[in-house]
C-alpha cells in the first residue's frame, strides 16, 4: 500500500469527508467488479456499490488498521451480495443476466482461439459457476487477493478457499472445452 493511500484511509477514518470521496474514486471499480461478477446483475450491483460505500463510511472508524482497508471493503461487498443472493433465492427473483449482456455486446464472432473469443467463452463459462465459486475465483484472478485474504473476506477457512478456486478452475476449463 502506498503512503498516499494510507494517509487517505487514515484521514477518512478521522471523519474527513473529502478523503473518503477520494477513496470512493479509487475503489469504485474494485467494488463494482466484485459486485457485478458475484451478482451477475448490473442493477443490483449498482445498489451494492452505493450501499457498500455508505456502510463503509459509517463503520470506517471501527477499522483497526488502515492496511486492512481493501480486504475489509471487499468483505462488506461480499456480505451485501450474499444477502441479496439469499433473498433472491427465497423470493425467486429473476435477474437480467449481466454475463449474457456482456457476451451479446462483444459479438458472437467465431474467431480462432484468440483473446477475444477466449473472453466471450470465459463469460459463458462463468455462468456455470455458483456465486460462491465465481466470487472466489474473481477475488483471486481479478482482485489478486491471497488465499488468506479471501478466507477472511468470505468468512471460511483457507482450505475451503483453496478447494473453491480449484473447483472453479476445473469447471471453467470443462466449459471452455465444450465451447471450443
Amino acid at each position, binding site marked *: 500500500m502506498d503512503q498516499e493511500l494510507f494517509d487517505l484511509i487514515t484521514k477518512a*477514518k*478521522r*471523519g*474527513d*469527508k*473529502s478523503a*473518503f*470521496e477520494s477513496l*470512493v474514486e479509487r475503489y*469504485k*471499480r474494485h467494488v*463494482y*467488479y466484485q459486485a*457485478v*461478477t458475484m451478482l451477475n446483475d*448490473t442493477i443490483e*450491483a*449498482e445498489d451494492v*456499490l*452505493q450501499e457498500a*460505500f*455508505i456502510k463503509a*463510511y*459509517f463503520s*470506517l*472508524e471501527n477499522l483497526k488498521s488502515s492496511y486492512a482497508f481493501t480486504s475489509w471493503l471487499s468483505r462488506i461487498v461480499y456480505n451485501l451480495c450474499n444477502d441479496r443472493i439469499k433473498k433472491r433465492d427465497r423470493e425467486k427473483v429473476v435477474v437480467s443476466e449481466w454475463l449474457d449482456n*456482456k457476451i451479446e455486446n462483444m459479438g458472437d464472432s467465431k474467431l480462432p482461439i484468440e*483473446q477475444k473469443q*477466449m*473472453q466471450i467463452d*470465459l*463469460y459463458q463459462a462463468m455462468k456455470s459457476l455458483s456465486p460462491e465459486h465465481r466470487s472466489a*475465483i*474473481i477475488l*483471486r*484472478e*481479478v482482485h489478486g487477493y*491471497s*488465499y488468506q485474504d479471501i478466507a477472511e473476506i468470505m468468512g471460511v477457512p483457507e482450505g475451503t478457499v*483453496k478447494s473453491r*478456486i*480449484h473447483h472453479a*478452475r476445473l469447471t*471453467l*476449463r470443462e466449459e*471452455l472445452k465444450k465451447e471450443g
Partner: protein
Amino acid sequence: MQHVDHLLSAYIDNELEEQERVVVEKHLQDCTDCLELYEDFSRMSASFTHAFETISLPEQAIEQLMTRINQLDTPDSPDPISVLSYAALRWGTISSILLLLAVNVSLMITFGPFFSFIQIFYRLAHGVVTIFSAIPYLGVVVTVTCFLLIGMSLWLLHQLLRLKKVEITQ
C-alpha cells in the same frame, strides 16, 4: 507416478509450500497430462485479467453515491475541536505553571524568600473577609450566585454537546 493436478491451482496462485512447489515443478517436466492442465489454467488466468478490464462503470450510480455521501452526517470520531481543546488545555496548564513560577520568583526577589506569600495571602484573606462582611444578605447573594453558576455550566455543557465537527481545510 503421483500426479499433481490437485496442487496446480494453488501452484498457479503461488500458494504452495516450497517443498510442494519443487515436487510440482519436477513432475511437470515428465507428465504431459499435468502439464496440459497447468497450461490451461495459466491461459485462463491470463484471460481473466483482460476480460474484466473492459467492464464499464455505472457513472450515474457513482454520481448519485457522491451526492449521498455529501449529504451524510459525519460519523462520530475524534473531534478536531476536542483535539484542539486538549492541546489548548495542555499548553494552557503548562504556561500557567510557568507564569506562577515566574511570579513566585519575582516575589521572592522583591519581598525576601519566606514571608512573601504568607503576607500576601494574609492581607488578601483579610481584605476579602472585610468586603464580604460588609455585604448585606450575604447568604442570599451566595445562593443566587451559585444557582447562576450552575445554570451557566449547564448551558455551556449543552452548547458543547451540540457542537458538530468542523471540516479541516488544508
